[in-house]
C-alpha cells in the first residue's frame, strides 16, 4: 500500500475516533437533555424553581468529544513523524484501533448521558446531591479518559 494511502487511512482513523466519540456525546446529551426538559416542566407545573444546574449534567457527556479531538490531533502529529516502514507495519493501529477506541469513548458518553438523565430527575426533585451526581458522572467518564490515556500510551510505542 502506498504511503500516502496509509497516511490518509491513519488520518481517517483519527477523525473517525473523534466522530464516534461525538456520536456518543450527542446520544448522551440528548438523553440528559430530554430528562432536563421534563424535570424543568415538572418544576413549572408544581410552581417550583427550575434549577439551572441541570445544564451542567446535560453538558457532561460533551467531554468525550474533547477526548476524541485530543486523540485525533495526536494521531495526526504522530503520522507525520513516522517512516514508511513503520507506517506500513502499524497502519491497522490507526485505521482500525483508533475508531474502536472512539466507539468505547462514545459508549462512555452515551451511558454518562443516561446517568445524567437520572441526575437531572433527582436534583430537580430534591435540590440535593449535586456533587454526588457529578461524582457518578465523573466515574463513567473515567472510562473514556482511561481509553484516551491508554491509547496515548500505546501510541508512544509506535516507532
Amino acid at each position: 500500500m502506498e504511503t500516502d494511502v496509509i497516511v490518509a487511512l491513519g488520518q481517517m482513523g483519527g477523525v473517525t475516533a473523534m466522530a464516534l466519540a461525538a456520536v456518543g456525546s450527542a446520544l448522551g446529551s440528548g438523553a440528559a437533555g430530554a430528562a432536563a426538559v421534563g424535570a424543568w416542566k415538572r418544576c413549572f407545573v408544581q410552581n417550583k424553581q427550575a434549577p439551572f444546574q441541570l445544564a451542567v449534567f446535560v453538558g457532561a457527556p460533551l467531554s468525550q468529544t474533547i477526548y476524541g479531538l485530543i486523540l485525533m490531533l495526536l494521531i495526526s502529529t504522530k503520522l507525520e513523524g513516522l517512516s514508511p516502514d513503520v507506517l506500513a507495519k502499524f497502519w491497522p493501529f490507526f485505521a482500525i484501533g483508533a475508531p474502536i477506541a472512539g466507539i468505547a469513548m462514545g459508549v462512555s458518553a452515551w451511558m454518562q448521558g443516561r446517568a445524567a438523565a437520572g441526575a437531572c430527575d433527582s436534583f430537580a426533585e430534591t435540590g440535593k446531591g449535586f456533587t454526588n451526581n457529578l461524582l457518578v458522572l465523573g466515574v463513567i467518564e473515567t472510562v473514556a479518559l482511561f481509553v484516551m490515556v491508554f491509547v496515548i500510551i500505546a501510541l508512544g510505542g509506535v516507532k
Partner: protein
Amino acid sequence: MIEAMKKVDVVCLSGDRAKVLEQLRDLEIIHLQPMTPAESVELSELRKRADRLQECIRVLEHHKPKDDEKHNYSEQTLELNPREMGNRVHQLVLNHESCLVERERWRRVEDLLKPWGAFDPALVEELRAKGMTVTFCVAPESRLPAAPEGAILQIISTDEDQIYFIVISEQQLTDELPTAQVPMDNSLDEVKAKEAAAQNRLDAVHRELRRLADFLPKVYADYHTCLDQIEFLETRDGMGESGELAYMGGYIPARRTDELNQAATTQGWGIMLSDPEPDDPQVPTLVTVPKWLKISEPIFDFVGIRPGYDELDISAWFLIFFCIFFGMIIGDAGYGSMFFIGALAAKLKLKGKFTVQTNLLLVLSSCTILWGGLTGNWFGLDQDLLKPIPWFDPDKVGGSEVVNHHVESLCFLLAAIHLSIAHVWKAILVINSLRCLAQVGWMIVVWGNFLLASNLVAGGSYPQPLILWTYGIGAALVLLFTTPNINPLKCLGGGAGAIAGGGINSFVDVVSYIRLFAVGMSSYYVAKSFNDMAGDVMNMGALAIIPAVLILIFGHALNIALCMLGVLVHGIRLNTLEFSGHMGLEWKGFAFRPFARRVKEELVR
C-alpha cells in the same frame, strides 16, 4: 471560613411557647430543628391558603397588565383580602377553562356549518315535517353522484377537494349517499354569536386577571407572610413537651452565644449550650468570607453546594482557579472586553444593586482579557496588531502545533498546582501525624503525573529517570504512611490499597485538565469560522455588509453561549470533582438558616 456552631436547647413554659418563638424570631439567631412533625387544623388551613396563593401567583404572572392598563397599585385599594384574592383567582381560572371549552365547542360547530352557508335550520325541519327528505352530503369531486331519480341535487359549495351538496326528494331515498354531519340546533349566525359571546367572557376573565395582576406585589407579600406563619406554627407545634415545659433544639453561631444568653436571661427562658458531636449530620454550615471573597458567593449559590460543617471552606482557591478556568475556556480577549464593558454599564445603571455579581463579572472578564491577550485571540481574528506573547506565537516557536503543546503543558501544570494545593492542605490538617507524609507522597505523585502527561500528550521531553524517581518517591511515601502501623502488613496493606484505588485516578485527574485547552481552542475555531463566513459574504459586494454583520452577530453570540456552557460544565466540574476529590470534600453541608421573618415590612405595606 466555616463558623463554629453551638448546639442549643431552649426550654420554656408550654403556655409561653408562642411568645418565646416570637422573641427568637426577632433575634434571627437560631437554626431550629422541629422536634416532632407538626399537624393541626390551623396549619392545614394555612397550607391550603398558601397553595391557593401560589396558584394565584402562577396565574397572575402570566397576565401582566398591558401598558395602557398599568397603574401604581399603591394608589388603588384592593377590595379583596388575601383569602378572597386566592379564591377569586381560582374561580377566574375555572371560568377561563369553561369559556375555553365552550368557545372551542362553538368553533367546531361553526367549522361544520360553514360550508353550508347561513341557512335556517328551521326551514329544513319544516321541509322534513312536510315529508320531504333533505340530505346533506359531501364527496370528492371525482365521486360526485348523480341526482337520484325524483330528487334534486344542489351543490352548495366547494373547497379544495370536497363538494358540499344537498339532495332533496319527496320520497325516501334508497340510493346510498355520502352524508355529512351537520348540526341542526343553531344557524351559522347564531353559532357565530355564541362563539363571540364565549370569547367576550374569556376576554373579560383576562381583563380581570390583568387587573388583579396589578396587585401581585401584595400577593407575593401575602404568600410569604403565609409561609412565615406556616413555619412559625410548624415550629410551635413541633416543640417537644414534658409536663408543663416545652423545648426545642437548634444551632447558633458560637460568636453569638453571649447575645443568646443575655436574651434568655432577660426574657426568662432556659437554655443549654453544648458543642456539636463530631459526627452530627444536623449541624448547618455558615460560611463567612472576607470582603474580597464575597464575589465567590454567587458561584456557590448557583451551584447550590455547601461544604459540610466538618469539611473545609475552599472558597479562596475555588474562586482563584475558577477565574483561571473561566479565562481559558472563554479564551477571547474581545469577548472578555464585552463582558467587562457590560459589567461596568450594569454597575452604573443598577447603582448599588447586585454589586457582588457585577464585581464577579468584572474579575472574570479581566481574566478572560488577560488570557486572550496573552494568546493573541481577539474575536478569533487573524491580526498583526495585538500579537500573542512569544511562547504562544506560532511564528516564534515553530508552528501552531508547538503552541498547542505549550497550552496543553500549561493545563497540566495548572492541574498539578491545583491538586497539589489539595494535598498540601490535607497534609497540614494532619501535620501532627505520619499520615501527612502520605499526602506529601500523593502530591509528588501528582507531579509525576504532570511529567508523564506532558511527555505523552504535550510533546514534553522530561527525562524518564526523573519521572520514575518522582513516582517512586511519591508511591513509597503513600505506601508507608497512608495507614502508619507497627504491623508491616497493616501498614503496607493500607498504602497498597490507596495506590491501587487512587493511582490511575490521580493520573486521569491531571489529564482531565486538558479540557481547558480543548474547549478554549474550539471557541477560537468557531469564532474564526464565522469570521471567515462573514468575510466570504462581504466579498460579494457592498450590499452584502448587512448579512455579513448579521452572521458575525449571530455567530459570536452563539459562540459566547457555547463558551458559557463550557464554563458551567468544565470550569465548575474541575473544582467540584477533581479538586474536591483530592481534598476529600463531599459537599454534604446545608446552609445555616436562622429562624426569622422572611417578609420585610415595606413589602407588606
